[in-house]
């Protein structure tokens, strides 16, 4: 087996047995990046020097006979939305070009403490606004399964890098589906944890009541390992919840007997791709055969999700992105006469189209005279949507749906039609509005060989149940073992 194809747990075993060094693994990954990233374009920048320093530290530790943790010496990629001390962090935006944070995000700090190796920073839609990574201010990332297709977004660089074996695993972030939808498009595993499970400190804010950091990995076991490595309360994020982090490995069991699975009829929407529907149905049948109790449920407010979401997230974004004023960080236009013009031109030249569109929309829905009709109304319907889930989880343990209504679409297909682009998030958005966790894993391929993702949602802080159902599914299928033919 080639080193870059390994999972976290496989590489860990080889490191412990001293069959491979962290340095060799890191070299193999950088060689792989050199071979394929010209096509995929997942990375914005690489951090070789620091990566090899960490690799050698791990190797010395192993040579001394010390025990190493699950993530120690594992080369991973980081979405460029997470602040990394001393290393440029752009959030996919020209307005942050040249911004060098003086601190690490809490998740970065945690992974450094655990000895993980950072290979580089991964491309994304600007400020995580998008479903295709076409909104990056720097480059278009391509889907490793078909280079004319989008990798999904906004964590498109992370999902594409994992699928193309350009890192062992990656971190992404998810505000309305930005981990799960790209994971689905690229045929890998992605988990959005419960809101509050993972600290958002050092995550560049888009919509603070929805954003959450999570793992993108090659299999479910890796998902459990990386989730364990980043979870937990943080005094620097007052919305991170102070509950114990379980050892997620205990949920990796091939057994779902008696697990109650709900299938919400509202998720099988008009316009759903028939191949996605067939793959989802086959997955549900397989879970039923495995002993789960499958039943139909209703989440009646689902059709309102996109409308609620694009009011709330743009409102929060218009406020969060007010800080990019050409004064404190990053870019400042040099064409201005006075302060107001400096703001206006800096933001005009620094932000891309989608970010401007969302700031304008968010400013409008919060403005005097419209607040009640839009923001308040959306927040009330959010309550109704959340109570749909509360009721459903009285009767079932998990909810299973497709992750996206279609497989990856073509580059350029939806850029001129923002509403159509927004509707591609329809199946992932409700999870963020309700703050619950959800996981996407591969459940098939369409005729053209593009991956199809299965979404599993659970109760607040019940990531363990998601891992159990996903692990069981994975143990009884081989979709996760398929690799794109890139070379």
């Amino acid at each position: 087996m080639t080193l870059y194809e390994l999972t976290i747990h496989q590489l860990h075993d080889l490191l412990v047995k001293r069959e491979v060094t962290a340095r060799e693994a890191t070299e193999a990954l950088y060689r792989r990046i050199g071979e394929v990233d010209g096509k995929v374009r997942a990375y914005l920048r690489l951090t070789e020097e620091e990566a090899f320093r960490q690799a050698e530290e791990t190797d010395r530790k192993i040579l001394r006979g010390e025990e190493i943790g699950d993530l120690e010496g594992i080369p991973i990629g980081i979405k460029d939305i997470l602040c990394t001390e001393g290393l440029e962090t752009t959030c996919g935006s020209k307005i942050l070009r040249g911004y060098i944070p003086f601190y690490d995000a809490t998740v970065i700090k945690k992974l450094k403490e655990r000895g993980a190796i950072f290979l580089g920073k991964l491309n994304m839609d600007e400020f995580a606004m998008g479903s295709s990574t076409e909104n990056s201010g720097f480059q278009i990332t391509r889907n490793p399964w078909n280079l004319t297709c989008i990798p999904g977004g906004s964590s498109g660089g992370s999902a594409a890098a994992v699928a193309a074996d350009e890192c062992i695993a990656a971190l992404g972030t998810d505000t309305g589906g930005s981990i799960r939808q790209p994971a689905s498009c690229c045929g890998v595993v992605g988990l959005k944890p419960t809101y509050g499970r993972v600290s958002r400190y050092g995550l560049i804010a888009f919509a603070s009541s929805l954003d959450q950091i999570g793992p993108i990995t090659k299999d479910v076991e890796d998902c459990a390992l990386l989730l364990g490595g980043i979870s937990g309360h943080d005094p620097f994020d007052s919305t991170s919840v102070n509950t114990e982090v379980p050892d997620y490995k205990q949920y990796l069991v091939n057994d779902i007997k008696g697990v109650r699975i709900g299938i919400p009829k509202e998720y099988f929407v008009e316009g759903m791709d028939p191949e996605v529907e067939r793959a989802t149905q086959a997955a549900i049948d397989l879970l039923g055969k495995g002993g789960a109790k499958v039943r139909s449920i209703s989440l009646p407010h689902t059709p309102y999700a996109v409308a609620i979401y694009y009011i709330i997230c743009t409102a929060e974004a218009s406020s969060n992105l007010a800080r990019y004023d050409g004064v404190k960080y990053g870019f400042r236009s040099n064409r201005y006469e006075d302060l107001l013009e400096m703001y206006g031109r800096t933001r005009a030249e620094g932000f891309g189209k989608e970010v401007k569109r969302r700031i304008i929309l968010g400013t409008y829905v919060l403005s005097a005279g419209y607040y009640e009709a839009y923001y308040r109304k959306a927040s009330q319907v959010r309550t109704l949507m959340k109570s749909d889930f509360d009721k459903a989880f009285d009767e079932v343990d998990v909810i299973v749906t497709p992750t996206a209504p279609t497989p990856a679409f073509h580059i350029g297909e939806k850029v001129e039609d923002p509403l159509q682009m927004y509707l591609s998030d329809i199946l992932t958005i409700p999870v963020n509005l309700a703050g619950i966790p959800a996981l996407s894993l591969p459940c098939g391929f369409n005729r053209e060989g593009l991956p199809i993702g299965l979404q599993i949602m659970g109760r607040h802080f019940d990531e363990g149940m998601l891992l159990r159902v996903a692990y069981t599914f994975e143990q009884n299928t081989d979709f996760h073992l398929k690799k794109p033919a890139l070379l």
Partner: protein
Amino acid sequence: MKMDIEKVARLARIQLTEEEKRTFGSQLEQILTYMEQLNRLDTTGVEPTSHAIPVVNVFRVDEVRPSTPREKILKASPDQEDGHFKVPRIIE
């Protein structure tokens, strides 16, 4: 037309080109029309949700400790002078 785009762009401190005003104007019009479906629901008496998980204020002990050094913060700024952010004249 639902939105006075010039006014909103001014509030958002973004200078839009004429082309952007036209395309954003019609795209946002379409999006706002889509959002109006929320009005089909009666939400009388429904409490709005601003956070999916109950959030309470978090206090820390009020003790003196070092804060981030000024130079570190200023380093990220596009223009600075004598330990301050430098901006165009604000008061005439």
